[in-house]
């Protein structure tokens, strides 16, 4: 296993940033908590739990992929991940269900759980897996006649943790920036004019990731 260097880190960071853009991933919640309490400190206080929940969702997806990688051929794993990503995309577009839990008066741990569930339910963690798979694959291109295994399992746990941390850093940066700027500067007027259908955009991202992972 080669140390992960170069482009994948940037990809992980940008993917995290992209996740942060989605209001369903937490910045909107942080703004609402600030408005509800009438102070900016509530926005800042929400960021830690949101990031922790998001990181946990990513770490879980990476860990599950690694565990499966130990027993499945890489090709099977990649198709499996692609199928799951498409499943999440279809779920976004066709069902668009509301979660049946949640509320405005949430404690820090509840907020972290919310963030974890939202990231998991939207396939955010799963979207990170292909980045690691493709990186792991790179060195083995030259030896494709050899039996291939997803080498995540062989990668040191700290690489997976590092990947999660980098992804979360990108997420936190954008989530925090959006929440603070919207709360203090832009206000909710933004929502009336600048709202794009992020559900569709998100589904598109899932499909693109699915295609990339098997191509």
């Amino acid at each position, binding site marked *: 296993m080669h140390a992960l260097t170069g482009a994948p880190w940037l990809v992980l960071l940008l993917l995290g940033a992209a996740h942060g853009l989605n*209001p369903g991933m937490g910045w909107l919640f942080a703004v609402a908590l600030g408005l*509800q*309490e*009438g102070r900016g400190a509530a926005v800042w206080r929400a960021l830690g739990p949101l990031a922790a929940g998001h990181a946990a969702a990513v770490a879980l997806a990476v860990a599950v992929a690694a565990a499966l990688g130990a027993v499945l051929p890489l090709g099977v794993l990649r198709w499996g991940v692609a199928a799951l990503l498409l499943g999440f995309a279809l779920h976004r577009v066709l069902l*668009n269900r*509301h979660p049946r839990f*949640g*509320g*405005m*008066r949430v404690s820090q741990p509840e907020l972290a759980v919310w963030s974890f569930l939202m990231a998991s339910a939207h396939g955010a963690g799963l979207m990170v897996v292909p980045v690691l798979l493709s990186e792991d694959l790179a060195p083995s291109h030259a030896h494709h006649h050899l039996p291939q295994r997803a080498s995540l399992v062989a990668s040191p746990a700290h690489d997976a943790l590092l990947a999660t941390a980098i992804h979360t850093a990108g997420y936190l940066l954008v989530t925090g920036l959006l929440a603070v700027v919207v709360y203090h500067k832009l206000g909710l007027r933004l929502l009336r004019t600048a709202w794009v259908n992020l559900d569709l955009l998100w589904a598109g991202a899932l499909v693109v990731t699915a295609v990339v992972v098997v191509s």
Partner: protein
Amino acid sequence: MLNPTPNGHGDAIGVVDTDPASKSYGRLIGQTEFPQGDNELHHFGWNACSSHLCPYAPHAHTERRYLVVPGTHSSRIHVLDTRPNPRQPELIKVIEGSEVHAKTGYAAPHTVHCGPDGIYMNALGTPDGGGPGGIFMLDHQTFELKGRWEKARGPQHLSYDFFWHLGQDTMITSEWGTPSMVSQGLNPELLLAGKYGHQLHVWDLRTREHKQAIDLGAEQQMVLELRPAHNPTKPYGFVGVVISLADLSASVWLWYNEGRHGHGAWKAQKVITIPAEPADPADLPPILQGFKAVPPLITDINLSVDDRMLYVSNWGTGELRQYDVSDPFHPRLTAVQRIGGIVRRAPHPSAPARPLNGGPQMVEVSRDGKRVYLTNALYSPWDAQFYPDGIKGWMTKLDADPAGGLALDPRFLVELEQGMRPHQVRLEGGDASSDSFCYS
């Protein structure tokens, strides 16, 4: 619109033109008739509204497009699509009463609100005509029944309206009577014994558990429409009480919470009292003759979206009152407009010589707070007791002055034909009792 007369026509949803620049302004321009006429249609509502922007379930792209219409007598639920032709909504789904009974255990559905996680609807009671009444949910896309909402109902038995403080994860419900207590008309024995509803109930919106009952006193009979402040940081709201057994007055109560983020105990106090008016028994229907007075009968109230103006319908005396409730503990009467009424029979300015019956009943306020719409029918078995000459259905509009003031629009009087009666009004782009907010 509901059709209480067995004349072969079904109930219907009517579409009224509210554009003052239009040639058909103030007229019924479309009508979708339902297959049956036995529904007793009550408080219908939209499939989606501002609450879908709540940050814990943000699905901003659910369209405000479908109207969900409960039938209180048939337990049927009709779903209409307003998108293809807003003037002629299309009936796309009918949930039969038997299905509502089987899947929810409730009967007599009454009020619809779009919530952050689906459509909430309440019911007056159970299929056998008794209680408890309560709330059930529908999927906001498929309109499938999702079963009962309550997880622990505590002492709550009677049901009428429900609404919430989304910012405080709190639901409030009110009390009228079970189907058997109301569907044969107002029962004077039950009324004089104080058996109709007189409590508010407070629920945790997240755990769906009953938290607190607030008793307004057994003499405060029939605690109906709940109008919480729209501002999600303000834990207070107003509720109308139809009649006091002490003196036939009607009242409006304020419920409020002084704890941080609504964590304290909820309380309620009377903030508006409207006295009964003495009347000649000869002018009164049999049910009121012994009292020699006409009770105001507050049957609906509505709060403007900016939480500043409260509108109070007095269906008995035929008055719509406007109060400035900037200070919710001390409402200030700013205008009174008379139309209809059991004794008064006040006319509309478009036909000053012609008395109108029925009175201000369901009241709806536009989001800008400048237009107020009224209809005159309450509930057909009760209409017959208070207006025995038979309510002639009308809808009218008032112009509201944001600084205080009300005037009937002389160009706006919709009179319904063939015995049809109007009840709930919904405005196309949302209105003061459709939208509930998670952001201040």
